[in-house]
């Protein structure tokens, strides 16, 4: 038994944030029915592809986002597509969509459509800037989302342009936030029979985000202080990223525990300087600069793994900068069973990150790999009691299989 295996999600999302939100529920057992337009989710067109060649069934991104889901292709402009959607909505516990605001209404399958089917059915809408407000129809991408709503302004070097996170990290964060909203809507429906429209603005999931953004905003409200764009993470000894014999290591140690740093370094003579152990002087740029000369030498004589081992022993906050090769080869994650393996008809044997977290009971399982386009159209519609004539029409309209 999985925690959510009595939940059916009607999933009208595409691209990254929406599918990630519903995948987290699918991982815990929810029956996520992924509705794709003829031609499929745009994420099928996005890299990385197996072999580097674009192919709608060979995107590693699409694969990761859509494991444990079933794919149904519906043309929502057509009556047969709408009829099938209505049948599916009757069996669903929650609807999730991330079209541009107003799109589903124009197709006649907006919130009102679902309300007519079932008043207690929650609808979660994920959009760029929310369902209301002057930017309602504005476009958004990873860069502009994080630049505008996330704390990107203070990332990078003072004399250069702000620089974003890797890949589409911000969209994944938004997806995680949206999964909480979906689960909240499910709880309100289960406990109180409340059906409702939930408005998730990608931008607002970042304005209120934990990664420095909210704290930076309130620090300004409190003190008038703003956060300058600078490398590292503020003052400290050691603090920031240092080169070592075979790469880089990142440290954090502000005023807190000079004793642990001493222990890590093996108590070299230079570290006994009283200035290096005074909590206030440890934040003085001139003192830090002097100390860094010694510390850099210590780092350059050691590998990133050697440094991290010493830091772990001395309980110093530290992490080596791993490449993907380092990560895949690392024993810790192998030993813990972090990597999952599965056979996919187009990708062959795939290795990928498994459970997002471990639950003692009812947690993550890989029940199925990411679906081929429309792989489950017939199967799912028959389950929902859609008549054969309608199914034929759906399949003829690009519904596949």
């Amino acid at each position, binding site marked *: 038994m999985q925690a959510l295996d009595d939940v059916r999600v009607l999933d009208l999302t595409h691209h990254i944030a929406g599918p990630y939100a519903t995948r987290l529920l699918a991982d815990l057992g929810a029956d996520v029915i992924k509705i794709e337009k003829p031609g499929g989710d745009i994420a099928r067109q996005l890299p990385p592809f197996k072999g580097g060649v674009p192919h709608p069934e060979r995107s590693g991104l699409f694969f990761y986002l859509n494991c444990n889901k079933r794919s149904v292709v519906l043309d929502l402009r057509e009556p047969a597509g709408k009829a099938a959607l209505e049948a599916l909505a009757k069996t669903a516990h929650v609807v999730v969509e991330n079209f541009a605001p107003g799109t589903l209404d124009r197709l006649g399958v907006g919130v009102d459509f679902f309300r007519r089917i079932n008043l207690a059915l929650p609808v979660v809408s994920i959009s760029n800037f929310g369902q209301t407000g002057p930017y309602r129809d504005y476009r958004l991408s990873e860069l502009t989302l994080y*630049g505008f709503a996330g704390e990107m302004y203070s990332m990078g070097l003072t004399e250069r342009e702000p620089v974003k996170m890797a890949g589409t990290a911000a969209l994944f964060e938004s997806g995680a936030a949206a999964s909480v909203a979906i689960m909240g809507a499910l709880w309100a429906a289960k406990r109180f029979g409340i059906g409702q429209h939930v408005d998730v603005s990608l931008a607002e999931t970042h304005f209120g985000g934990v990664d420095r953004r909210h704290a930076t905003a309130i620090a300004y409200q409190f003190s008038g202080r703003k956060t300058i764009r600078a490398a590292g993470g503020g003052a400290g000894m050691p603090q920031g990223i240092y080169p070592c014999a075979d790469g880089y290591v990142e440290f954090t140690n502000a005023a807190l525990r000079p004793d642990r740093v001493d222990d890590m370094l093996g108590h070299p003579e230079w570290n006994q300087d009283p200035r290096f152990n005074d909590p206030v002087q440890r934040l003085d740029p001139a003192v830090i600069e002097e100390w860094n000369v010694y510390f850099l030498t210590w780092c350059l004589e050691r590998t990133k793994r050697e440094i991290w081992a010493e830091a772990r022993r001395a309980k110093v906050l530290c992490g080596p900068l791993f490449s993907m090769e380092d990560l895949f080869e690392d024993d810790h994650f192998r030993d813990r069973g972090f990597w999952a393996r599965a056979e996919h008809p187009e990708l062959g044997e795939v290795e990928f990150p498994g459970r997002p977290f471990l639950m003692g009971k009812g947690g993550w399982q890989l029940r199925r790999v990411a679906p081929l386009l429309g792989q489950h159209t017939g199967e799912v519609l028959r389950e929902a009691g859609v008549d054969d004539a309608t199914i034929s029409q759906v399949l003829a309209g690009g519904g596949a299989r």
Partner: protein
Amino acid sequence: MTHKPLEGIRVIDLCVVWAGPFATMLLGDLGAEVIKPENPFVFQPMTRGAMARPPQILLERSIAWSGGLPRNEVGPRPWNYNPTFVSLYRNKKSFTVDLRRPEGKDILRRLVAISDVVYENNAVGTLEKLGITEAWLREANPAIILVRVPAYGLTGPYHNARALGVHLEAVMGHTLLRGYDDADPSANTAIYSGDYMAGAQGALAVMAALWYRERTGEGQTIEIAQAENAAAMFTHAIMDYSLNRNVQGAIGNRDVHGRAPCGVYPAKSPGTAATMDDRWIAIHIENDAQWQRLVEAMGSPEWARDPRFATNEGRAAHHREIDEGIAAWTRERDDYELMHQLQALGIAAAPVLEASRMFDDPHLRARDFFKTQTVRDAGTHEYVGPLWKFEKTPVEFYQPPVCFGEHNEYVYRELLKVSDEEYAALRAGGHIAEEYDPSVP
């Protein structure tokens, strides 16, 4: 008051720093009663600030989100209004107890007995040292849902590694994958995106475990290894290595999916980066038609009409040249005006907003995003709003960021129903307090 999805659910918040408190804040936003036990004799660094009583100069030398206290003064009780703390402690309650002493631990046991969830993200071993083990908790309440958020997991060679988000993200590859493509990785700023992921998914995990409990009557233990949890953010690089053994590196502000141009360009600025008055516009062109519209918006300059730039392939190959051209056009223009002009043409564009400017944004104002809260000793300010808008179970900020020990009376007398005699003894013993013990620096 309207119904809340999680009303009646009680969560004990044994959390520190960011990842744990973010999860319990989301649960509180959804209506759970979140209660934080705090120790008057032990200061948890980076939770209510760096130190209980920081020297003034430490505030001044700290990054703003850590040292930007009201009026730039330490004030009487700095632990109540550290900016990082207040951003994570709305909709929560606080009471004090010294868990190192048996009578304190017994108070926690009694609270666990009437709670649904215990959430902790301390360094592995911290709770064990106090004797707060899974077995001990389950003896107090067999159906308790225990969430643990170790950096690298409770097992494996790195289980004892100390880490903040920035360190475990480095291990998962983020630090080599982000930052300027033409600079050393040491140019990177410390960030904590893993805390966002683990925090949000911790709230999800709790709600899934509650769902399971509703169906079976059984509690359970959840382990969120933060490093493993962060991996999804780097799917592009992980899957590329998995499928193709291709090791990706930093690409600055470029689109990871290859659509060009995608960059951050200077806008008309009232000042410099040194005074945090520099302004930037982020622009992302996703197809050829958008590029043509951008060219027209720029007044169709000759450089932009270069046929090499008509296709995405050509634009990607000459990205730097295009960057220079766009920058020359944006440099003397207002960032918000650029956004509106380009968005009217269907182009994703937005200012790279310095945090304080969000309070002036008309869209956020129109959506009534900000919430005013009053914190004792700090005064009344506008705070950032909730992550989502629920139509019928709206997120309300019913409890402002909680002061140390603010709910001692409630927890001891109403919830635990301790006698007057026991209450007096606990107060005399220093368990019940509204300030840190003077011995705490």
